[in-house]
């Protein structure tokens, strides 16, 4: 269950960020800032959002630049996990080059990421 929640949460959040950037014709960085600015101060929601944006931001920017969609981003960041022997789970239609290929490409992009190392260790 926790991994399913993490994966769903990741795909939803990344999708919203991506769409905010598209709607406002802005960068991913600005879209993340915009999303955080919409959150209330209660429960430190805004602060948590800003912390997460700082934490995930650099990798997200790199991945979005390479045209990765939310499924690919979340698999590349190990927030969605492929079960052995089963295909990759995806919400969006797979990219033209194939989901597996796109995820591997994205994983190479964030290979040196400090964040990824921390997440994997966690």
């Amino acid at each position, binding site marked *: *269950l926790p*991994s*399913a*929640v993490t*994966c*769903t949460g990741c*795909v*939803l959040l990344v*999708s*919203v960020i991506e*769409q*905010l950037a*598209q*709607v406002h014709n802005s960068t991913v960085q600005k879209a993340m800032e915009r*999303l955080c*600015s*919409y*959150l*209330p101060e*209660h*429960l430190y*929601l805004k602060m948590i959002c800003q912390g997460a944006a700082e934490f995930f931001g650099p990798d997200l920017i790199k991945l979005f630049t390479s045209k990765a969609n939310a499924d690919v981003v979340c698999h590349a960041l190990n927030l*969605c996990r492929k079960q052995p022997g*089963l*295909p990759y*789970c*995806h*919400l*969006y*239609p797979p990219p033209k080059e194939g989901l597996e290929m796109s995820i591997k490409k994205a994983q190479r992009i964030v290979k040196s990421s400090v964040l990824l190392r921390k997440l994997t260790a966690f």
Partner: protein
Amino acid sequence: PSICSLPFLDKICQKIKHTIDYKVPLKDFDQDNFSDLSYFRGYDWRGKDCNDLNDTVYPGRSPRNWDIQHDSNCNGIWGIDPEDGIPYEKKFCEGTDSKGVILLADSAGAHFHIPPEWLTAETMSLKTFSNLPLTIFNEFDWPQFSGYTGFLNSTIGGWTESIYLHLRDRNRCNHRDYQSISKNGGSSKNIMGFIESLARKKKLDKPAIVIYSMVGNDVCNEYTDTLAHMTSPKDLHDDVMKVLKYLNSRLPDGSHVILQGLADGRFLWDHLHNRYHPLGQLNKDITYEQLYTFLSCIQFNPCNGWMSLNETLRNLTSQRAFQLSSVLEEIATLKFSSFDMLYVNFSIAAIADEWHKLGGKPWQLIEPTDGFHPSQNALALGAKLVWQEVLQKWPHVLGKPNPFNKDIVRVFGDQGGH
């Protein structure tokens, strides 16, 4: 868990966990299971406590000494009429067969709702997430707008119509007498784990109309072999009988229990599968079919039987739901000393017919974000249909209209609100 391991947060975390596990209010100084805080299982879920420092004062009790001194049942009626010296509670409520509504239900009854605006980038603004903290505190449920215990005008679209509001309109002495004992994921299998939070004293309190409404989770689960994990008719029978025996020991005499059948969830696929999910509206790239498949793939689909591409599986799930509804219908013929019983359907088809008459489309009856739960419109119409059916077939359950309703409003206004 890591946040709760901090020493200064330990106690509050334990309190919140207790509230979530046992479905009792977080803030409840007098421990009577009623609160004057709305969220954390407070008065969004059960009538507001008009004195949280006195456990003999709470909604639903029979008035104490006709509430001459103070409002012991929180219905907003108390004191003595100076003209004739008769206590108002005696004058307006005695012999009016006043009673409360208690809901035993799942997430549909509790009104699970994730605002679609949270996922809609085009309309997102500073206002969009203003209700996020309250939503978290109420476990993503909105019982204050639900079709059973709803009492506030809906702020999430549609309108509020509930069994409680109808019963209150029928007899203003029933003001604040509602309880939503419901849980996301609630079913016949786990209800005994939270039914004890029901607050009704057999000897002290007014009778109640208890609505048992577990409309899906006995056939809905996230397992790949979903059929094998559905409740069997025998298990349902045994579990519901346990619930009824428990209710018989807790409910005041003259109460009523309404058993509601399961939904036919094929409606979900039939009306949603080729529509776009809120997240897919912008680029026309995510349909509910894709959402259901994704959720099944990550083993997070709340209903693999109905939210499935497989038509045979959807039909088999409905078949089991019909079997379970038949068991409930049969149980409803039994007699208990504290209450009588009746059975009503949860007919999404009938709700859709009503909605069609109002010019609505079937897909508007399903929660847009999760593609699974009944929407605000569906719950309001469902309440109307259940009310009409009970009124027509079993009017004694609802009691007679209180002839003093206008007088109560004249003297006590909104009776202290909710």
